[in-house]
């Protein structure tokens, strides 16, 4: 990229010869490139670095677990069947909570987008709710929904709800007004306009809100499982954390991270399918 700089400068100085010479190249660069292999390589390098550092002793054993031990923990977790015992309740909580929260969020967001009254009343409420840390509300959730699954679903749903509301009404607001005007000019009913123009037009925004909502839902798994969960990835991590069992802590964190990356890949896949009409 530095040669852009140099040729750029060269052009701006009058040349000392006047014979025909090629026009210097000064374009290129500034193009996002992707390379999946390099990403994997970086992971491998980091893991190798930590492994060697810990074995050689120039990384303290207190600060990080041996990657190979984390892997062994993971294998053991898998072989003992405990992996599923932890994963299934967590996935259930994630799916139920996030679905409830996302549906409610999309519904409320659409109402806000369509009705001035809902907007005036609810937007400040959602704005006030957004920065409230959900862990702070844990004791209340237990009273409201009990220590069973109810409070966990509710916590995750609440976490998914607020970003979905914000994303949805933003998306509805951003639907091309000429398309709506077109619908009106053809005498479409209000319901038709909402179903056929507003909602599909808001879909890209809703899906990108879903990405954030689901990431937050995964993050809240741990908070949700702080209360009264014996099984679950979050409970596993919390237990490992409170015992300073770094191997298990990392194994759990890796599981959540994989879950997050997988969720985001699923959303990307849905986007590609549902939004095939985009360029």
């Amino acid at each position, binding site marked *: 990229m530095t040669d852009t700089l140099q040729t750029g400068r060269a052009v701006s100085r009058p040349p000392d010869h006047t014979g025909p010479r090629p026009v210097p190249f000064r374009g290129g660069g500034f193009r996002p490139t992707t390379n999946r292999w390099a990403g994997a390589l970086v992971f491998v390098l980091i893991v190798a670095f930590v492994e060697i550092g810990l074995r050689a002793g120039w990384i303290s054993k207190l600060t990080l677990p041996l990657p190979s031990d984390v892997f062994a923990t993971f294998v053991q977790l898998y072989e003992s069947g405990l992996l599923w015992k932890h994963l299934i309740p967590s996935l259930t909580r994630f799916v139920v909570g996030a679905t409830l929260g996302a549906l409610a969020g999309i519904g409320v967001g659409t109402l806000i987008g369509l009705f001035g009254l809902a907007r005036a009343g609810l937007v400040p409420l959602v704005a006030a709710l957004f920065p409230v840390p959900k862990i702070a509300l844990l*004791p209340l959730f*237990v*009273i409201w929904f*009990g*220590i*069973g699954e109810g409070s966990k679903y509710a916590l995750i749903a609440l976490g998914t709800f607020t970003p979905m509301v914000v994303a949805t009404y933003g998306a509805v607001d951003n639907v091309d007004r000429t398309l709506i005007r077109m619908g009106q000019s053809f005498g479409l009913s209000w319901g038709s306009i909402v179903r056929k123009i507003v909602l599909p037009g808001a879909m890209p925004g809703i899906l990108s809100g879903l990405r954030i909502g689901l990431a937050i839902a995964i993050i809240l798994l741990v908070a949700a499982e702080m209360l*009264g969960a014996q099984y679950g990835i979050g409970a596993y991590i919390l237990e490992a954390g*409170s015992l300073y069992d770094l191997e298990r802590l990392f194994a759990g964190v890796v599981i959540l991270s994989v879950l997050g990356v997988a969720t985001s890949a699923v959303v990307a896949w849905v986007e590609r399918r549902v939004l095939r009409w985009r360029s």
Partner: protein
Amino acid sequence: QGRAIKVGALRFTSHAPTFIAMERGYFAEAGLEVEPVFFQAAQPMAVAIAAGDVDYAMTSITGGLISLAQKGAVKVFGGALSEEQGIPGQSILTSGAAMEAGVTSPAGLDGRRWGMTTAGSSFHYMGAKVAEAEGIGLEFVPLQKVPAVIGALRTGQVDAWAIVPHIASGLVASGEVHEIGRIADYLPGYQVTTMFGSTANVADRELTQAWLDAMARAITDYNATMIDRASGEAGVQDMVSLLAPYVYPDRTPEEAAGPIVAGTMRINEGAALNVASVRDQLDWFQSEGLVDASIAFEDLVDTSYVESVGA
């Protein structure tokens, strides 16, 4: 078929009576079908009772418990674990670093950091009482969870802490942490844990009495076997193998035996309640502003079920 109830429990030796009553069928004989609900800490247990998820539980008096009692949600009606001079109760521990800096007794802790889970926990109360008795000042550091306090103590990020004997013995044995005193010396007769339930359940005399009766039988078994050694070593072995799966589910009974025996503390016969100690705890919470000053003793405790001692 017995009446189904849920009992909150921690995987601690101090909850032995619940496990004994379950294993030996005392609950069933009292007409109760008990399902244990395990918690990681005392605090959420009180909230779970208030929410109606759990019927009875046994744990220390905390600020949260008192607040919920004030809102008419829970009530204390019996005592359990007590400090008693002569029995190795809760220990006061100090970190290796503090020891090296010359802390050899609680009196030397002036201005140092005392670990606790949360403000208003029993750790907070004990630290405050020790400080009061020694005339020293302590800085209280909330760390949310017992293991976090242990970690902070081992790495010298807090200087002192008080904890039940089975945990203390393990820590002291590791050599990183040192014992510098006993809580029993500062708070003789300290009512460490109490029995409580939702106000509605406590009002149900028949149910509560049934539960208490079963627990009282288990307490007698426990004290006789573990403290008075009425059945000798064999009895202790039996008891350990009964408790081990509850208290240390991921250890073998042999591994569990040591800490279970070391963790033995007297549990009040007949679930008698040390009213004076409870009153002192309430007074302290109120004087610290941790709970509302308007709460009366009667809001917290129903003394009609068990014998009051120490008053």
